[in-house]
């Protein structure tokens, strides 16, 4: 690893923004591009689901705990992945405190490209407004000290929600042209929501687009999404953190070419292999395992995964995806703790670089 002179102490926000540009940092930031809400945090600030997904003050209170309780360098108020689909007219299941809201994908709202329609009052939908208001509240609370990350769903994910997974996948094979047409129309929802969140005050945006490795090939990503994701970089002028679950090493080279600021990868991909593939062309956010490590194991196990990421030169550290709602707080606070302690014994190691 490269040795440099020490960087003076940064605020959380400065640290996150620098790491997203692969610039020197005082220590590796800990961020949550995806939710770190838990039922215990909900209790702490009296902001239970589903209320915290639909009420701006509750959403902001719960999001704030990511920094004030867990010690992360960012806050991210969009816990789930359904706001856009709700605003587009999908049927929703809001569930309860200890479960996630979901889209009823077995009752799709669209079948063909001509069905696709982003309503003129899309940004006035209550579930969209809730997010924008929560961002404003967080900006007011944290000023310039903490990074605020928003979230806007990519068109492939919207395709799953609005068409249903199997119909959408079959269409992608039967009629790639039609599929591209659908993606072109749906991306409007992605861009509009992203821009609105920038106006509200976000520093960066997570962009989940679930062209996941268990369902589609890396070539699919290249064919359908790579160019569109590159366009998003100019259409949505804040650092974008692409999130795709599952095994994604076969598409990381393409992702690294999009110009996006960062790629949030999951634990099915090793940090060192991922870092080697992207070769400093994009920042990486990785990749603490959720179902086994964060949910079911102990702080020592969390620490081991954090260290693996740090030793591989991953630029930002965090859970691999939205954490299970019953995850223990002690496992989550271990992440920033482990990062701080590692840096105290690995001084002057920033930024991580693989091109030397």
């Amino acid at each position: 690893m490269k040795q440099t002179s020490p960087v003076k102490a940064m605020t959380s926000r400065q640290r996150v923004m620098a790491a997203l540009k692969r610039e020197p940092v005082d220590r590796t930031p800990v961020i949550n591009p995806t939710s770190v809400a838990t039922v215990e945090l909900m209790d702490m600030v009296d902001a239970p689901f589903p209320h915290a997904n639909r009420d701006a003050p509750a959403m902001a209170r719960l999001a704030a705990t990511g920094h004030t309780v867990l010690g992360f360098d960012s806050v991210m108020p969009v816990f789930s992945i359904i706001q856009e689909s709700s605003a587009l007219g999908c049927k929703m299941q809001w569930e309860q405190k200890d479960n996630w809201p979901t889209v009823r994908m077995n009752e799709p709202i669209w079948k063909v490209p001509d069905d696709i329609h982003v309503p003129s009052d899309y940004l006035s939908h209550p579930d969209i407004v809730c997010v924008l208001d929560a961002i404003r509240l967080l900006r007011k609370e944290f000023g310039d000290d903490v990074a605020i990350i928003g979230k806007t769903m990519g068109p492939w994910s919207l395709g799953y929600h609005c068409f249903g997974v199997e119909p959408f996948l079959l269409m992608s094979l039967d009629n790639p042209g039609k599929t591209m047409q659908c993606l072109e129309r749906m991306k409007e929802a992605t861009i509009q929501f992203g821009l609105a969140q920038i106006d509200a005050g976000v520093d960066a945006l997570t962009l989940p687009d679930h062209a996941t490795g268990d369902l589609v090939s890396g070539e699919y990503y290249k064919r359908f999404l790579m160019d569109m994701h590159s366009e998003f970089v100019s259409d949505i002028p804040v650092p974008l953190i692409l999130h795709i679950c599952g095994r994604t090493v076969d598409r990381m080279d393409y992702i690294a070419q999009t110009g996006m600021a960062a790629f949030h990868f999951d634990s099915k991909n090793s940090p060192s292999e991922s870092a080697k593939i992207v070769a400093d062309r994009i920042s990486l956010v990785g990749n603490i395992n959720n179902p086994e490590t964060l949910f079911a194991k102990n702080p020592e196990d969390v620490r081991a995964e954090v260290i693996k990421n740090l030793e591989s030169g991953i630029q930002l550290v965090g859970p691999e995806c939205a954490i299970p709602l019953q995850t223990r707080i002690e496992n989550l606070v271990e992440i920033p703790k482990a990062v701080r302690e590692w840096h105290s014994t690995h001084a002057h190691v920033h930024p991580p670089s693989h091109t030397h």
Partner: protein
Amino acid sequence: MAELSDIANEFIREEIEEYLERPEEIERNIELFARIRPAMQEIAAALIEGENDVVDRLTQQALADGTEALEIMDDGLIAGMGIVGIKFREAMIFVPEVLACARAMKAGMHYIEPILSDAGVEPIAKVLMGTVKGDLHDIGKNLCIMMLRGSGFEVVDLGVDTSDDDFIDAIEEHQPSILGMSALLTTTMPNMGKAIEAFIDADVRDDVMVMVGGAPVTQEFADDMGADGYGKDALACVELAKRLAGVQN
């Protein structure tokens, strides 16, 4: 011993040459397709390409020409699906392609199934099939079901996300000889062990032979959790079911 050049259909020859790597699978498929009549090879080729309209047309054609339904099933549809299963396992094709092939299989089975049911053939055994709790993937299960039915088994499909209670209720209602569980996610695999434990608690474990399968499942895992058998793909599932049914008899 048959050779690649003995296979009439060029597309099938290319598929075997390009996509099959394991020597035993190459040999088995060459023997198989060399024996199969060209008209059936054509059905298999159309299925592998996911061309459901072509499979539909060719199946109807074959039946009109007097070909036995069982031959169309075995030599056209199932043989073709065998190649699809291998390609999917080796990540040469992904879910969209498999969905298209499954759609093509269904198109052919639409004509075959009624004929087989009407024939009043005594099923070899009754099999319950379900994907375990928390797992929503059913492509592998559906392939197994199609092949099991084509091989003479009566199959009850429990669908996806099958809870232990659903399995147990179904065992009590249908009294099958064999129960098949599939899982496609590593996070749901442990539910197979939990299901078997539930069968013990409910005192039905001894009433049924349990076979398991799915992409992340291994023989070792199946042995650890107390299953009676493991099938690594849809073809192996049928062979296993035949063996377990034989044990029963």
